[in-house]
């Protein structure tokens, strides 16, 4: 009964989005403002409607309504309540609803802003947002209904939206339970963050399309969407980082990133989004690259949809894939529709997007930003090809192939290195003009510093050429960025008479985007240190130990004490936990407990590593196998991952940097608002 009601609300929200689309188009065509307003209100309504739908679904999940197929598939009685709630996005249909719900939240937010200056954009923003929403809700309504119930008929038990004739509702005693991999805290936040990043990129796209359709292709749409893009980028980045951390903690690969097609699918919009964040500055400062920015926004949106499609249609197989389903063809049609419309529109409006100025120097900041874009696009091309190549190979040669980490690492590492290097050079070059001389003057000090540091690393730590190049670039960028920061702080100290901390604080506050960007660059370097550490200096060993025996690796002595197995029936898990003592140079460092969890309901195991983490390295131990009877011998896989903690530390700093860069700049907005008020000479008090 409740399930049917939920489905009803879902259908209503679908109809409302459709109405919104048509009302907006009709209102725009007939210049009927009331109609557009009606469309806007309809769009506002989607969020409460979908919230109600989601609320009903959560109610069913929490209260063990196993007659609902989705509830049966993703929850079980042994799961705690918070997991039952997060199971909402643990399966195909639920996560689609989650997608729509987040999308509607963003759509509502965007409609609530002041539209007075951009009235002509409004109907088209509504159209794009609501078409996207209608599509996702439509998939729920027609193909993946989360409120489908189980009915017992003559031919057996079958799920159906409406009760089939001569059938009775069937309620299983218990559900199948959530995939244990999805029970990790990282996995609880990772998908929402990723989805948030995905859906929030729909808004810049909607504005870009509105600009193209209305022909108002000045910088306005860029100014409107810049901050959206930053927030979208924040969520996407956070989602990716969490995914990495989750993989490190739960998947038991000893790594954080496996170049899995689905990981790459989430990574590709990040690449274009990052490229956009850089090139958008060129448009703002120099009035150039308008076409290119438009293309990047469209690409980002297309990659978001494409990534979602790849994960859910069964085209690619991967650890992250949802079960195969019928939504593929509809999804494909939607992708084709958006790609073709976007391309046609941009070609149609091409001449409207002229550049206002010209490039004057190959070393100017805009030129270097273009290089940065080229590098991001190159990485994108490699990733895209890597994802699509198995498909191409199978279709045209009949040969299935795997494109694994070696391909991506080989093809992208020079690109990453160049990108890092650019990070060191670009902040020193000026907009418009820059010559070798000016650049050289700005660079020589950090350059000398970096050479000294690299020489030191060469003498004390490693002689690997690749790693040395990496450390050299990292040192250079860090020095350049810190030097730039310091110059700014110093200038403020002198001119404003502030002490060093207030100078630092005010400097960042005054130009958040720039200094937030610097913090992001610094954090990138920390992450690079971690990545070089784990990629180039990881050591691993595996061995079967009897009790009391030990293994030596990279200066650590790992001694196996004992292993114990017990059942936690309420949670439905069998834990097998080993106890390992870690020594270094005879000194006891601590105990680690790598374990294997076996979940009865889903019949799956999870390998939880024991990890001892320091800034220098991580000692990461996996329990691979053990003798169940004698409980004397157990096989362990041990990794030493040098410097990997810098990756997580860098990720945190990275998020801080984005928040600083994306934080609304009150002053400039107030100035803009005041200017606007002065111009219109009405409502003098409304500005603040």
């Amino acid at each position, binding site marked *: 009964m409740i399930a049917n009601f939920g489905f009803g609300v879902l259908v209503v929200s679908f109809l409302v989005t459709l109405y919104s689309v048509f009302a907006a188009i009709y209102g725009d065509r007939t210049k009927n403002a009331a109609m557009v307003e009606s469309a806007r209100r309809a769009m506002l309504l989607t969020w409460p409607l979908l919230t109600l739908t989601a609320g009903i679904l959560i109610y069913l999940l929490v209260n063990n309504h196993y007659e609902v197929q989705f509830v049966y598939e993703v929850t079980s009685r042994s799961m705690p309540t918070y997991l039952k709630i997060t199971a909402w996005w643990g399966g195909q249909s639920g996560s689609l609803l989650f997608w729509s719900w987040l999308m509607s939240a963003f759509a509502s937010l965007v409609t609530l802003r002041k539209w007075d200056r951009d009235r002509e954009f409004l109907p088209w923003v509504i159209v794009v947002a609501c078409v996207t929403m209608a599509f996702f809700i439509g998939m729920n309504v027609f193909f993946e209904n989360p409120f489908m119930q189980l009915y017992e008929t003559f031919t057996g038990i079958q799920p159906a939206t409406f009760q089939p004739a001569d059938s009775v509702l069937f309620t299983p005693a218990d559900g199948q339970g959530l995939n244990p991999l999805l029970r990790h805290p990282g996995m609880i936040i990772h998908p929402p963050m990723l989805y948030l990043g995905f859906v929030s990129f729909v808004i810049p796209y909607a504005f870009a399309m509105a600009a193209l359709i209305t022909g108002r292709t000045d910088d306005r749409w860029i100014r409107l969407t810049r901050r959206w893009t930053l927030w979208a980028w924040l969520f996407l980045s956070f989602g990716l980082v969490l995914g990495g951390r989750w993989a490190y903690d739960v998947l038991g690969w000893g790594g954080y990133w496996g170049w899995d097609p689905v990981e790459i699918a989430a990574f590709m919009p990040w690449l274009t989004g990052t490229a956009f964040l850089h090139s958008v500055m060129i448009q703002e400062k120099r009035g150039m690259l308008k076409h290119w920015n438009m293309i990047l926004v469209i690409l980002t949106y297309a990659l978001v949809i494409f990534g979602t499609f790849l994960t859910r249609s069964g085209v690619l197989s991967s650890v992250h894939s949802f079960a195969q389903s019928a939504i593929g063809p509809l999804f494909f049609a939607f992708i084709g529709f958006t790609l073709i419309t976007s391309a046609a529109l941009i070609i149609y409006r091409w001449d409207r997007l002229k550049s*206002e100025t010209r490039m004057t120097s190959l070393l100017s900041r805009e*030129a270097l930003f273009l290089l940065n874009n080229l590098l991001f696009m190159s990485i994108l091309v490699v990733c895209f090809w890597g994802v699509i190549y198995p498909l191409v190979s199978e279709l045209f040669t009949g040969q299935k192939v795997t494109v694994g980490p070696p391909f991506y690492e080989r093809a992208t590492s020079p690109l990453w290195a160049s990108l890092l290097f650019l990070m060191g050079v670009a902040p020193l070059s000026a907009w418009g003009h820059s010559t070798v001389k000016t650049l050289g003057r700005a660079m020589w000090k950090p350059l000398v510093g970096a050479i000294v540091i690299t020489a030191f690393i060469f003498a004390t730590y490693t002689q690997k050429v690749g790693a040395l190049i990496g450390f050299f670039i990292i040192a250079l960028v860090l020095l350049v960025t810190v030097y730039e920061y310091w110059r700014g702080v110093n200038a403020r100290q002198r001119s404003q008479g502030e002490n060093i901390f207030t100078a630092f604080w005010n400097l960042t506050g005054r130009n958040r985007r720039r200094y937030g960007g610097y913090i992001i660059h610094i954090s990138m370097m920390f992450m690079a240190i971690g990545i070089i550490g784990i990629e180039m200096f990881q050591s691993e060993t*595996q061995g079967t130990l009897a009790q009391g025996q030990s293994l030596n690796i990279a200066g650590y002595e790992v001694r196996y004490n004992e292993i114990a197995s017990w059942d936690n029936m309420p949670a439905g898990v069998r834990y097998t936990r080993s106890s390992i003592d870690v020594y270094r140079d005879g000194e006891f460092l601590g105990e680690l407990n790598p374990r294997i969890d076996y979940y009865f309901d889903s019949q799956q195991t999870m390998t939880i590593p024991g990890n001892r983490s320091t800034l220098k390295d991580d000692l990461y131990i996996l329990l691979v196998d053990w003798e169940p009877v004698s409980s004397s011998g157990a096989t362990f896989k041990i990794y030493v991952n040098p410097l990997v903690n810098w990756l997580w530390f860098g990720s945190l700093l990275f998020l801080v940097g984005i928040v600083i860069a994306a934080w609304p700049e009150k002053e400039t907005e107030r100035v803009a608002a005041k200017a606007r008020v002065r111009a219109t000479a009405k409502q003098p008090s409304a500005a603040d």
Partner: protein
Amino acid sequence: MIKILKAASTSTKLPLAILIALAFTLTLTLMASAQGPTPTDDEVNRIAKQLYCPVCESTPLDVCPTEACRQWRDLIRTQLAEGKTEEEIKQYFVEQYGARALADPPNRLASYLVPAIAILFGVLLLARGFQMWMKPSTTETNASDPRGEAKSVDPYVAKLEEELKKQK
């Protein structure tokens, strides 16, 4: 050989020569039998790392927990014990299970050439773009730069940008 012959020619050192020859054959047989017993997990994993089992796609063999993958690792161990080289083992897996057992597509040309061409195309276009962009500015120089004037004189980048910030 020569040394042994020399040793053989001098009658006093004959026992020593025999001893050396004996020790030589002994180490040889020891080395041969050393290949025989079980290779270590690390040796197995070194090869397993480079292989992918179709049963659990996109999970490297060395960390894949499924039964099928465990069997594959045992197979690597057996083959190592038989004295097969890494290349031979990988070749065997390709014959048995197809090219997808390898982490890297076997057709290097196709897999690397396409992105390389695309990137090259991008580089060429950017180069051409720079060319076209720069050309008019040489004839019109500063006149064509109405926006850039505030930033065009820039020996003291930091100072200027500092000023810009104050303008806000």
